[in-house]
Every structure is written in C-alpha cells, then in structure tokens.
C-alpha cells in the first residue's frame, strides 16, 4: 500500500503526519471502543495523555496514534471492538448500564457457587485491549548513558530558555522532548518563540538535544529514563529542570466522551500543525486566554467557529462570533457530537474544543521527591503567559546550573467537576459511579480508585485524577483524615518491556579458561552459581571408574580462592573459622567450615598456611562473591589489619585424582611427590610441566589426589600436559556428576545441597570441625546455646539393599506413612553395588542401624561416616 494499511484500507500519509492525523484526514472519527461499555471514542487530547487513540501498530498493542509518526506500509488496527470499531456489536453493553452498577464485579456471580468459574473466563475475554502477537521475540536494543550537568525535560518556551540559561552559566546541558519543538503548537506567537529559541539552542555546542524522546521515569540518583527510537537513554544529570508543560483539564459533563469533543490544544494541533480540519462547525469553550488563540488556527483550517462558551470575566473583546457566558453542560449526538448545551442553549456543532484551565503535567514532578529538580513554565504554574513562561525557564536554568538543590512538591488543588459524564475515559467511570461508591463507603480517592478502577487504566490518572479528587471532595467536604490523592508512579510515559531492558546485564555467566576445551571433548555444561561447569563428558560411570581405578582430572578453577595476609591475618582467620588456624605450620592445610552468627554452616573449604602469617583459602564455587564481602565486613568490624585478596578469577585449579595420580604427576615434575615428602593434608609449591603450582593433597573424592592451583593463563598448557601424560593409564576428565557420586561414597556433604539455612555442624555430625574451647569465632555463642538442646532433625547417611532402585534426590523419608525426613543426596554406588545417600531424618529415627523408608523403599541408617574406604587409607596413600 502507498499509505497506511488501516484495517485493509489504504490511508494516504502526508509529510509530518502522525497516524492519528492521517486517519482523521481520511475520515476516521471513531478511534477505539471504550473498555467497559464499548462506547465510541475519538481523538481527545492529541498529546499522548488519554486512552482514546490506542491502536495496534504492526503487532504492537496500545500505541498512541496521536504520537506515533505515520509511515507508508504500517499496519494499523483499532482495538476492543467486534467486528469493527465503527460497528461494534458489543456496544449493546452501553444500553445495559443498569445491569452494571459500580462495583458490579464484587456484587455479581456469587451464588450459586459454581456460577463464577463459568462466568470468569467470559469476563477475562472481555477485558484487555489488543492481542499479543505470539511471534514477537524481544529485540536487542541499546542503552545509552548520558551525564549532562543539567537535564532539561520539555522543549517548550520554558524548557528552551532553561537550556540556554544553564548553558550560559557554563553547564553542559541535555534537552529532551517527547516530540519535536513546536510539534503540537499551531502558528502564532508561542510557536514563533519556540522556533526562535530552538534555533538559538542549536547554535550552542554545550547543549545536546534529543527529540521524540519521552521521559518515562525519574528515579533516585537522579536517574531519568527516556526512550529514543530503538535506544533507551539512562540520563544521570547533576540537576534537572522539569519543563514538561501543562494541559487543559479534563472537563466532565453529560456525554463528554463523544467523538468530536476535543481538548482545544488537540484540535488546534490537528488544524494548525497537521493541516487537518478537525470539524466543520465548532464551539470553543474558553476558560483561559490561550483557548481564544486557537480560534485562528481552527478558522485557518476551514473550521467555522460558531460560538465561544467563555468563563465569566474572560476578555473576549477580540472574539467575532457569538459569546455565551457559562459552562458546557452536555454534548449531544450518537456516534459523534451533533450539538452541545451551554447556559441552557443548544448549539449545533460537530466539534467542541475544550479550552479549559491549564493544569501542570505533574507526573514527573511528583516523582521528584527530594531530587535536585527545578520546575519551570506551565509545569510549575497554571497557564502562564508566554513572557512569564520564558522568564520562569530562564530562572530555572540558572538555578539548576548553580548546583543541585532540593525541590519540595505539593499536589495541585482539585477543581470542580460536572454533575454527569465520564471522569475516567480508560475505564468508563462516571460521576454517578463515583458518587454511588462514596455512598457505599469508599470515601477517599485511594479507595475509589480501587473500587471503581478510576485512574487505573492506561492514562494512569493523567486525564482523570484531578476530577476524581474533585468529586470526592465535593461529596465529602470533611475528608479530613485520609489522604485524598492517589499516588503517581512510574512510568510517566509507557515503555515497552524490551525498551526497559535495553542494555541491561542479564545472566552473568562465568567460565574458567578451559571451557572451550571442555566443549571440544564433549563436555556438557551446567550452572553452579554464576559459573558454568562441566556436568559430564558423556559417561558418568566411566569417569567415576577412571578415578576409582586409575586416574581422572577435573577442572576446579571455579573454586573461590583468597590470599589472606597482613599483621592480623592469623587472628582474623581464628575468628572467621570455627577450627584452629594459629597452630597450622607452614606447609600444612586444614578443612574448615564457615558459620554465620547463628552457628549455621554457610560454606566450607580449606586453609593453607603459607608461612609468615600468610594464608591461602579456598571456598565453594558459589560462595566466593558473598564471602569476599562477608570477610571484609568482619575485618572491618574487628578492626583487623588484614588483606583479603580474591584470586578466584586469576588462578586456575585442576584436581588430579586416582591411584595413579602420583605416578602421573611425577612424570611431569622433578619435585618429590612421594608420601613422605608430600603427605596427605599438606601443600607444596611444585612445578608441573613447567607451570608453578601450589599443590594440595586433599581427599574430597576419596582417592590419592593433588589439587593444583596456578595462574589461570597456564590452564590449557597444564591440562594438555596432564592428559598426555595420563594416556598410559587411560586418564579421563570427569565432571560434577562423577564428583558428586565420588564424594557421596565418602560421606562428604555439599553445602546448600545437603545443608539448609538451619544446619549447624552438630546436625551433620561435623562437630569435629568446631573447637568450642577457642576464645571466639563467628557462631560460637549460638552453638553453645544450641548444644543445650536436642536437634529435631539430623543429617544421616543411609543405605539400601542391592537391587533396590535408587530414590531421587528430594524424595521423602517416611515412617509408617508419616513424614520423617527428606533425601538430599542419593546415588547408586557402583563400588558397593547398592543405593546410598544422605537424608535429614527426625531425631527419633536417626540412630545408626534404624530402619527407615526412603522414597517408598526400605533403607537403613548407616553406622559410619564414609561408605567407601572408611579408614581413609586410599587418600593417604
């Protein structure tokens, strides 16, 4: 199509058209059907505030047609009507107001009880505007950060003046506007001033401008979010000038929602900016001088202005048509205005331009709270003259440039409201609805909002909030105790979800230096905290056997690794760990639990004494980030002179495990690795394949094992050397799954899998790792209290007979059908030939040898700690 594809009709587009302008020019008058009663709705504010022109554009629902630039080929459809907005079958609901009283939903469908589940799906179908296109995937959009000294929001005369003044005072300035300067203003003195100031702004290098950039939210920082095409701006200014203008107040009268009733600025915009004749015969309702200025724009577009309804006292000496003093009390017509009633007179017309009092656009202002914000122009006052608005802008710009200053915001006072008509265009809430609701007990604006849904629609109160307050106050002048204003919240202008996440970091994924290698040899990856680790290399059983029978290699580079040094390092670790640290001689290492103040296990790992009061710590893969700040906090609290250096990313780590581990490494190292020179639970500085390593003899998997820590850059070199040297024993890399099975056979717990946030060392049989005779350590006081009580549950090892299917982890433990515990770890042990596992079991059933039911099958509480090699001879080999 050459123009817009509007529900199958080709609508021509002219330069500068919005979708609304193009459709209106081609004769469209009904732009939508209202949410509840399916009343016809036409263009009203023509400035992005009201819900009347929400359409679906190229699959995007609820696009404001009056703000969206028209492009050839756009596919535009109207919403919430069937079969079409022009002839909507559901408009019959508009005849059924008597059956849909306020609060209808709460009062209907109660009895019989089965009625509601049948009615509800129908109500769901009736609700909502537009259909979501199921094929839309989020696009990747960019986020741009800006750091101006002063941000000015709104490029009307006040905003433009503010930008110039702030730049003149030496600040860098960013000036944004949701349209382009003057886009909504028909020619006249204001437009001339805007054009002149826009040219002046363009000549100042210190001012960055961005048009068609609506501000959507203002947050602490200050951080202002604005949307500019496919980019989302995060603007971080020192001070902000809010010059977001004002708008004519929504006037409520009988059938005030008929198509043809328009705010005067909107009508003037159609006429003077887009060259669209908004109507043939117009009545202008003028409550302030600016409204009279629009007559010229309307007349120039070919509109015959037949009468002006003017507020008492308004100077109408320049008006050439008939002037009626008073207010409009009704509109007449079926699908659009055919006449209006004012001061008892009925005047035929097809357009009512409502030039009501100007109220500030206070949404952004009310989000400012205590931020360094200055408000200028109509956003601060009520319908300023051109000169006053410009002066206000200049003053605001200077104030903002002078430095951050706190701004206190007071809500506007409510105005009057008619006796009939629609307060809320989004949700079809009338004055009568509100009055009934007030009589029923919902007195305050907040309760009226929740009960009637007024202000809860897409306009979020921009149109209706003021009139809501007016109705509540009129009905109940002594609303003294409860706040009579709803809270304004972000977003100020809608922002799509994909715009909101533009450039946001998502799912940080950490890898060791060996990920590419793992993938190349068939490793499948799984999450371990923020890390991706190898789950397996295709055959868990083969990996397991390699470790038990020959030798295996696992990448443990994800372990948390810390160097702890400084004069107080020993004392610090004595208090961090529940076991002894001070007696560790250089070259020794020790397993350590980490507890929080409540005595609950939060992590575990090893401590190597490096000598000279320096220590090397490992913690779990998931614990490193948290423990770094945790240790920092304690060091700070105790005033210790200690350095905690996180080496997690800079060091790689590999564990060579299995009966042939020593023979393998000895091929690659000249350092003595024999049992006497390098015994169990010792560490040594050794060179392997030319790579200097801190080597530790540890036993997590229950075999002779060397854990090597080295610069991460050497990871691939070392890996390759070990794999090559291990070929003669058919070495296999092994993943997390094999490791979990191997460690379970040793009865070792995994923090967070086998423990929960109540687990103290006693509950898991690890009291040996706690020295209560130490002076103090984190968790000591709680554990001493704890010892005076019996634990309700204990973590126990269990076994099952051969041939029994292994229950899944997470299965329940039962006694006589009653819940008695839960399984945290379970595997079929290849070496033992039957299922083994760990489970939390109620104390009464936790004694060694007790018969319990695990996942429905009989099991026995195991009497020892390790299922495999209980004496630990293999790992000491």
């Amino acid at each position, binding site marked *: 199509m050459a123009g817009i594809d509007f529900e199958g009709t080709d609508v021509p587009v002219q330069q500068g058209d919005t979708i609304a302008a193009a459709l209106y020019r081609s004769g469209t008058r009904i732009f939508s059907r209202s949410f509840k009663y399916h009343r016809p709705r036409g263009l009203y504010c023509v400035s992005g505030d009201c819900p009347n022109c929400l359409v679906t554009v190229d699959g995007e629902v609820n696009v404001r047609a009056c703000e969206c630039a028209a492009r050839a080929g756009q596919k535009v459809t109207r919403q919430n009507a069937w079969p079409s907005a022009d002839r909507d079958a559901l408009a019959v609901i508009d005849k059924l107001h008597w059956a849909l009283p306020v609060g209808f939903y709460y009062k209907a469908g109660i009895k019989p009880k089965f009625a509601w589940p049948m009615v509800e799906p129908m109500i769901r179908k009736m609700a*909502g505007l537009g259909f979501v296109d199921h094929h839309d995937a989020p696009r990747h959009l960019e986020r741009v950060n800006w750091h101006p000294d002063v941000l000015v929001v709104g490029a009307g005369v006040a905003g433009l003046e503010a930008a110039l003044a702030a730049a003149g005072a030496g600040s860098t300035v960013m000036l944004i506007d949701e349209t382009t300067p003057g886009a909504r203003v028909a020619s006249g003195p204001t437009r001339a001033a805007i054009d002149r100031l826009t040219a002046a702004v363009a000549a100042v290098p210190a001012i960055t401008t961005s048009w068609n950039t609506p501000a959507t939210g203002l947050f602490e920082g200050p951080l202002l979010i604005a949307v500019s095409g496919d980019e989302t701006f995060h603007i971080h200014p020192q001070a902000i000038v809010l010059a977001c203008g004002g708008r004519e107040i929504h006037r409520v009268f009988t059938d005030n929602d008929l198509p043809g009733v328009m705010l005067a600025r909107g009508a003037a915009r159609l006429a003077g900016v887009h060259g669209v004749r908004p109507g043939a015969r117009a009545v202008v309702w003028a409550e302030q001088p600016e409204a009279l200025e629009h007559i010229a724009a309307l007349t120039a577009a070919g509109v015959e202005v037949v009468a002006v309804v003017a507020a008492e006292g308004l100077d109408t000496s320049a008006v050439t048509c008939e002037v009626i003093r008073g207010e409009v009390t009704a509109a007449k017509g079926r699908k659009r205005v055919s006449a209006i009633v004012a001061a008892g007179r009925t005047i035929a017309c097809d357009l009512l331009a409502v030039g009501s009092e100007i109220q500030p656009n206070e949404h952004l202002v009310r989000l400012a709270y205590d931020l360094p914000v200055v408000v200028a122009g109509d956003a601060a006052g009520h319908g300023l003259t051109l000169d006053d608005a410009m002066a206000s802008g200049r003053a605001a710009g200077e104030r903002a440039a002078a430095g951050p200053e706190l701004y206190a915001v007071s809500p506007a006072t409510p105005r009057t409201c008619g006796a009939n008509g629609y307060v809320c265009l989004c949700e079809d809430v009338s004055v009568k609805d509100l009055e009934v609701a007030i009589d029923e007990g919902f007195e305050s604006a907040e309760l009226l909002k929740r009960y009637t849904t007024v202000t809860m629609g897409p306009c979020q109160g921009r149109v209706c909030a003021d009139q809501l307050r007016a109705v509540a106050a009129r009905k109940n002048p002594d609303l003294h105790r409860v706040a009579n204003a709803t809270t304004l919240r972000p977003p100020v202008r809608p922002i799509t979800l994909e715009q909101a996440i533009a450039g946001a970091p998502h799912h940080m994924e950490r890898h060791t230096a060996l990920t590419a290698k793992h993938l190349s040899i068939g490793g499948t990856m799984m999450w371990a905290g923020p890390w991706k680790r190898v789950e397996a290399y295709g055959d868990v059983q083969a990996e397991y056997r390699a470790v038990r029978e020959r030798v295996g290699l696992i990448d443990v580079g994800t372990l948390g690794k810390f160097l702890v040094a400084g004069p107080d390092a020993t004392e610090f670790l004595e208090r961090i760990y529940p076991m002894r640290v001070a007696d560790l001689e250089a070259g020794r290492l020790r397993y350590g639990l980490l507890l929080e103040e409540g005595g609950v296990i939060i992590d575990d790992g090893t401590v190597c004494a490096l000598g000279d009061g320096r220590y090397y710590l490992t913690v779990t893969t998931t614990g490193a980030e948290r423990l770094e700040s945790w240790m920092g906090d304690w060091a700070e609290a105790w005033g210790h002179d200690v350095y905690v250096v996180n080496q997690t990313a800079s060091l790689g780590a590999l564990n060579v495990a299995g009966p042939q581990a020593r023979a393998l490494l000895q091929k690659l190292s000249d350092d003595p690795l024999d049992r006497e020179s390098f015994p169990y639970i010792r560490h040594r500085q050794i060179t392997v394949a030319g790579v200097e390593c801190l080597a530790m003899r540890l036993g997590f998997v229950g075999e002779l094992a060397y854990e090597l820590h080295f610069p991460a850059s050497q990871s691939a070199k070392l890996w390759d050397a070990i794999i090559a040297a291990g070929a003669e024993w058919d070495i296999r890399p092994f993943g997390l799954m094999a490791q979990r099975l191997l460690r379970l056979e040793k009865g070792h717990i995994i923090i967070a899998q086998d423990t929960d946030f109540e687990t103290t060392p006693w509950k898991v049989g690890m009291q040996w790792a706690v020295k209560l005779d130490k002076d103090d350590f984190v968790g000591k006081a709680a554990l001493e209290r704890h010892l005076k009580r019996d634990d309700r549950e204990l973590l126990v090892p269990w076994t099952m007979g051969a041939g029994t299917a292994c229950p899944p982890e997470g299965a329940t433990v039962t006694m006589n059908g009653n819940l008695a515990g839960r399984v945290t770890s379970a595997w079929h042990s290849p070496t033992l030939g039957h299922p083994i596992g760990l489970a939390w079991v109620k104390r009464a059933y936790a004694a060694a040898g007790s018969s319990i039911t695990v996942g429905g099958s009989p099991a026995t509480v195991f009497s020892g700690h390790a299922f495999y090699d209980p004496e630990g001879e293999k790992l000491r080999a």
Partner: protein
Amino acid sequence: MSGLFRGRTWWKRSELKKSYDVVIIGGGGHGMGTAYYLAKNFGITNVAVLEKNYIGAGGTGRNTTIIRSNYRTPEGIRFYERSMELFRGLSQELDINMMLSKLGHFTLAHTDSSVRVQRERGETNRLLGVDSKLIGREEIADLCPELNMSMDVAYPIQAALYHPPGSVLRHDAVVWGYATGAYHKGVHIHQGVEVTGIRKDASGKCIGVDTSEGPIDAGVVVSAVAGWTTQVCDMAGVRTPITNHPLQAFVTEPVKPMLHKILVSANLHVYVSQTDRGEFLIGSEIEPYTTYNLRSTFSFVQHSVANALDLVPQLARLKMMRQWTGYCDMTPDYSPIMGETGVENFYLDAGWGTWGFKATAVCGETMAQMAATGKTPELIAPFRLSRFADEQMVPEKAAASVSH
C-alpha cells in the same frame, strides 16, 4: 445475583469511643479478618480497627493476590491449607465476589538443585494431602503452551512444581469483605487514626493505646501492621527479629487473555500472571536492603523484565503501565510471628514478608481466637515469637522466598 441491583453500604464512619474490648491496629486484611471472626465466631463486637491510612493501604493492596498451600513444613502446610479452605467459601459467606480464579500455580525449576528442592516440596505436599507434584517438560508445555520451553536460553526450564489449586483472587475484595462483615456486626472501623503509643499499667500489662485522636482503653490489643511491626512493637517494648525490605511489582497495559497459569520461577526470581483485567502482573524477590522508602527503582524493572521475558518472550512489546513498592516484614525463617508477645494482652500478627496475603483468612480466624480466649490456637503455636530465642524455627525459605 444478590445485592447487585440494590445499593449496599459496605461500611460507614463510626464515632471513636474511649474504650473497646479489643483494639486492632492495622486495617489491612489481617486486622479486618481478625475483627470479622471476633464478631462472627465469638460474638465480640465492641471492637475497633484503627488504620492510620485507608483500608488495605499496605501489603493487602500491593501483593500479587496469589493463594496456595504448597509449603515446605507440615506446620506451614496445615496453616495455609486452612486459609485456602476459608478463602474458597468466602465469597458466599460475605456476599462479595472475591473473584477467586483457580488458575493453577507453577514453580519453575531451571537447575538441578532447584529440581531437587521442588521435588522435595511436591513429595512432602503429597504426603500431607496437598495437591502438588513435580512435573516434567512435556507436561509443562501441555499445560502452559505460552511458556518458552526452548533449551537455547540461559536457564532452560527443567521441571516444575505444579499446584492446581493455586489461585488468584481480588486482594481488595478480601479486606473490604471482612470490613463489611465486621462493620455490619457492629465493629468500628476508623480510617486515618494513627496509633502513637501502647499503654501499659504498672504491672506491664497492656491496657490500651494512644492515638492521633487521643487515648483509647482496650482489654486486648492486636497488632496486625506488617511493615510497621517494629515501630508498634517498639511502643510496646517488644523485640522482634524482623527486618523491613521493599518488594516491587509492576503491571503492563491490559491485553486480551493469553496466559492462564500463575508462573513463578525459583531460579529467575520472578513471577508472572495475567489478571482478569488483562494486565500482566510481574514481580520479583524482595530487595536485599532494608528501608522505609517506598520509591520504585528502575533496576528492579530491568531485572524482573529480563527474567519474565525469558519465560514469556512474546510480552516483549507490551508496555509497562505502573510499578509500585510495598514493605515486607521479613523473619529469619520465612515464617510468621503470631500470638503472645510477653506483654500481657498485647498480641502480635507479624512477620508476613511475602506470604501475608494468602494467610489472611486463617490469620483472621486464629488471631480472633487468640484475642477472644487468650489461648494460643494450635495452628499458630509453631509461629510463636519465642521460637527464635529457642531456635525452634519453621524453615520455609525454600517455599516462601520468591514463590509468592
């Protein structure tokens, strides 16, 4: 269609009296529920509910409206099951449509450890008679075709705990319903009245409250103020292990219905549901910091949206309509604090974190019993304040934290 075509009075203002048998601090769902059941079950109607703002201004009107009972501990399950039972009959009992919508509740698991936790919950639930089970990918895709089941995302969905009775209902209707029921039985509802002190006699017994409208005598005082618990308890000299965290949520503009299940992701810390009005309601876990600042943040939006779009990517071009923040009075074990406080005649209903709405009904019932009889009902005995000193906690973190 009872009551549809006639006007009805939900409540009216009452004169503030100098003395009541029971004063309830907090006009949220819990406070109103307590007032209602005091009148209904015990015939105690000389009761005042004092609300410093408007009815339901706090957590009652800010939560995600989900009710469910697939908790982790037997204590938790029993308690929330009773709440579900009460909720199911509430529309008829109070003659107000609560719009209970039995959509079914998914707790999605994206990692092996999460699968383990959800399996455990499902197994425990089943043993205790709660309809809840772990289901695999195929069944998930069948039940909720809108979900993104792709393996080509950072956290593919591996399994889900499915809880068919999981429902949503209109949160405001609950508090208004209880308020109406209580009012028509004679309870006084005072909005805009702030409690400024807890009055005690020489022996330390609670004898009333001081308010912005003057002192009020009371036989029993019940505090049901959630986010403001620590302040009210300070007035009474009661210490609680409660920290106050903000919790945020937002809705999109309304669209025609497309998602018919309640989605919660245990790993992505996000929940998504579509309301009867057509809005998508999306939220996250509590913020890690403590504050009494109710301002919304954009970082919350970014995180929750990114995670929600992982689950339902076709929402990408929907528009946000409104975001808001509420308070969560968090306890160390993610279970509530209910009953005696150590101050005679001053009872506490607190520690409601992110799980307060679904407990509204049972809280009303049990706190009314507590206030009327002075004896701790068995259902709430595990939630006594003294459990923290005794280290006899009721660990619900795995089932309560993000799984609203």
